[in-house]
């Protein structure tokens, strides 16, 4: 099913995480909102295959990669077009040109870096934008180098380079929350030293603000690192209890409330019998 929304509601890092974890194949289109000065909008397209990024571009005319090759001066537009026609239908253009000895592996890497890493990483700075993921869009062989990047790697690179975090401010874990690891053992990702330091505190006990104090880092910086650990699937935000339980609750004017709740004591729930559950389901079914 098509997924749509606004980046202000569901951010690009969250979206990438969803597409990767869901092993999605299709086309993600991001339409920037009209610029207040120029009233112009721009479309950005990112193609996914099995949750990994395979290509990116600003148009759907299947000429983006050819244009990049031509701009590098490695081949003329027409020459690439002619060679592209000789490629097998399922082979990515970049790989096809490499197989024909027209491009080297290094050149392909450079193309992929320009096409995907640089273009997509820049999108993390967008304050907002409308997005749509179309799982039925065809795979664009003419836009593909044959190289792939995991959404996690792109997210990590994009967020590390991000200067202005205002657009993601609401998404950051609260300074009062802790972090908890959601993986077995240590991360396989290449974390930087600060990320490793914060990772060491993913045991669900210490608030982000206290981690910052411990590491002598600004709270905002630790929040940003924590967000990176969250959207790359390494950790989860764990809200800590804001206040200790009081010794009693003033509930004298709510006689309907059962004493065990009103007392404020947290001793757990007494089990209910199978006949209770049977009767309850029977009773509820009469209301359906």
């Amino acid at each position, binding site marked *: *099913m098509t*997924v*749509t*929304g606004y980046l*202000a*509601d*569901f951010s690009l890092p*969250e979206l990438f995480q*969803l597409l990767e*974890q*869901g092993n999605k194949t299709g086309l993600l289109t991001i339409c920037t909102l009209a610029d207040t000065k120029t009233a112009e909008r721009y479309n950005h397209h990112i193609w996914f295959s099995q949750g990994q990024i395979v290509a990116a571009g600003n148009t759907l005319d299947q000429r983006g990669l050819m244009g990049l090759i031509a701009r590098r001066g490695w081949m003329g537009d027409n020459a690439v077009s002619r060679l592209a026609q000789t490629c097998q239908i399922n082979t990515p253009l970049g790989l096809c040109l490499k197989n024909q000895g027209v491009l080297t592996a290094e050149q392909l890497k450079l193309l992929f870096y320009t096409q995907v890493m640089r273009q997509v990483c820049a999108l993390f700075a967008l304050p907002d934008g409308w997005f749509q993921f179309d799982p039925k869009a065809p795979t664009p062989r003419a836009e593909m180098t044959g190289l792939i990047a995991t959404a996690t790697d792109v997210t990590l690179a994009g967020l590390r380079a991000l200067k202005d975090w205002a657009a993601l401010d*609401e*998404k950051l874990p609260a300074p*009062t*929350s802790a972090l*908890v690891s*959601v993986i077995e053992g240590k991360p396989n990702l290449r974390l930087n030293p600060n990320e490793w330091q914060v990772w060491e505190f993913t045991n*669900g006990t210490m608030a982000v603000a206290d981690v910052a104090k411990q590491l002598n880092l600004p709270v905002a910086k630790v929040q940003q690192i924590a967000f990176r650990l969250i959207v790359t699937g390494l950790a*989860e*935000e*764990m*809200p*800590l*209890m*804001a*206040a*200790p*339980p*009081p*010794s*009693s*609750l*003033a*509930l004298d004017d*709510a006689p*309907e*409330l*059962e004493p*065990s*709740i009103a007392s*404020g*004591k*947290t*001793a*757990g*729930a007494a*089990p*209910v*019998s*199978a006949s*209770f*559950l049977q*009767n*309850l*389901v029977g*009773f*509820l*079914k009469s*209301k*359906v």
Partner: protein
Amino acid sequence: MEIMRLVVTGPVGAGKSTFIRSVSEIEVVDTDRRATDEALLIKKRTTVAFDFGRLQFGPDMALHLYGTPGQSRFDFMWDILIQKAHAYILLVAAHRPHEFREARRIMMFMKQRSPVPMIIGLTHTDCPGAWDAANIALALGYPNPSRRPPVVTVNANETASVAQAVIALVQHTWSGSLAATS
């Protein structure tokens, strides 16, 4: 009196109060109480608010429904409710993706405090821009369909729909308790 306590939780506006109101046989009690700590009685008074509904279906059998407090901070009242609960339902408005992260936070808090069974109830699924269940489950951190809690669609305004969701929650709890004893 045998009592089963279900907690209804979720981000603000997901339909918790409406859900309880739709199935409760008593006027839902919107408790707005002062939490008093005897030691700090003079200087510390905290207001807590949560919904309470009841369904009595036998002379000595009742279902109690508790909605978690509307405020965003996780205080002792959340803890009391979840510790006393037999199960809970997390309500998520399908058309508000900006609340999915908050729903995830709530779920993490609940999981940490208590291992009781839970299901996810999707509200507002007929609204424009609503996401489908599979993508919401992904957004809530459940990539593996076979390892996620049951997801039900619920119209919090309709008694029949809420009753159906409560049945799903009770049955999920029941199957969990059967598995635990076998």
